[in-house]
């Protein structure tokens, strides 16, 4: 797998790529990388982890309630983030997994969040589990919670965060994701506040990234945007990150989930 990004990068550099051809080239590349993606391996490993007894209570996550009842994985991801009465807060997939790790398995938050983002040699437990749970929503339309007052609150906070300018470089999410037909280097920038752009993106995260051979979650995507915006680091599964995720997923509502995706 490692040779593929190099070969493509080589092809892109060695052939003169003009702006009007760039889009076609990128689309061709995206088709190529979708074939032979190792996403399925992450899904299988995630399923094994889901069923593996762990923690002081030595139980698996099979009784974890992802919003559709204890142990129901089918279609659960497409309906997140949503409000959970037992935690009295809106949670996205990773926040909910963390909740189940601490409540069901009896693990400490510190231990369970020690390594939430993995690397190419050793993916994280969260990444494997996200791949599995998300895969069980393929074909289900995205429908994050919008009826509970706390879900409405999360959406409004996420929207405000999206347009909030701060950090070392005065940026908001909209600085890059606010105008159509813009790129950073060769990377096209979806206008995430508009449904037609948010839909295909949110329907394919979490995702495998070919350029660094890693499986990445939505929590990571948000974290890495803030790193590049020169902000301090968002705390894992904090209300701010879940609010942003809520805003983005509600904006993408109705799109059939077809991930985990494969990205450049």
């Amino acid at each position: 797998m490692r040779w593929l990004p190099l070969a493509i990068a080589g092809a892109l550099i060695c052939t003169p790529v003009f702006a009007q051809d760039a889009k076609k080239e990128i689309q061709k590349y995206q088709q190529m990388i979708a074939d032979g993606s190792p996403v399925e391996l992450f899904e299988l490993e995630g399923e094994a982890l889901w069923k593996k007894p762990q923690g002081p209570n030595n139980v698996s996550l099979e009784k974890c309630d992802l919003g559709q009842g204890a142990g129901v994985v089918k279609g659960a991801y497409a309906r997140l983030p949503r409000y959970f009465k037992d935690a009295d807060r809106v949670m996205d997939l990773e926040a909910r997994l963390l909740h189940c790790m601490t409540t069901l398995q009896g693990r400490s938050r510190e231990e369970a969040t020690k390594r939430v983002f993995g690397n190419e040699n050793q993916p994280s437990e969260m990444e494997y589990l996200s791949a599995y749970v998300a895969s069980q929503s393929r074909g289900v339309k995205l429908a994050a919670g919008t009826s509970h007052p706390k879900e409405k609150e999360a959406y409004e906070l996420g929207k405000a965060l999206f347009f909030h300018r701060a950090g070392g470089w005065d940026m908001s999410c909209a600085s890059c994701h606010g105008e159509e037909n813009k790129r950073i280097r060769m990377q096209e920038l979806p206008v995430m506040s508009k449904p037609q752009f948010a839909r295909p993106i949110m329907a394919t995260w979490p995702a495998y990234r070919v350029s660094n051979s890693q499986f990445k979650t939505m929590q990571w995507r948000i974290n890495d945007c803030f790193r590049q915006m020169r902000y301090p680091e968002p705390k894992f599964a904090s209300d701010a990150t879940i609010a942003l995720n809520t805003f983005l997923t509600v904006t993408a509502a109705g799109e059939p989930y077809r991930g985990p995706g494969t990205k450049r």
Partner: protein
Amino acid sequence: MRSALVFVICSIFCTAVLAQDVQKVLQRDFQARGQATMDRVVQDGLQRLCTDTNDRPPGDVARQLEADQMKTIAFPAGNLIGDWKNGERIAQNGRGLQWTDPAGATGGGSCYNCHQISPQESSHGTLGPSLLKFGWMRGSGPEMQRYVYGKIYNAKAYNLCSTMPRLGHSGTLTSEQIKDLVGLLLDPASPVNK
């Protein structure tokens, strides 16, 4: 009458979150890491105004704040055209100020992330305007040197809600690095102007 009605309706349905509330959330839900310290989530005057007005501040206030930003720029004396070859390296370099970058290490300007600059580099962003032939079209006199230096040092002195970072003011680039970038854009020998 009509505005009273809007007010009543809004007080019931409008749930817009104020920038000061967002700032409190950031202070609670973010943490310092490496050189990315928590003071960065505290908005300064222009960040707050640009957020509150969707980047369309009232003209008179904008002029006043732009004048304040202009005062942050320390223009070096003499020729501001540095080494364009080094400028090209700085323009290519996307590091600096992130929690993954070592504090105090020399970073870059991330210029190609947003701008077309030298014609040889086809991997360039489009968030900012193309700078191809910048000096060829505008000349490279003292006034133009001063404008380019100032714009890179603090873009907000010229356009308050510009998307462009304040690269000198934020401590991303040194005065010498900015001069090298002025060279990249204005030096007749630079590939930008060929």
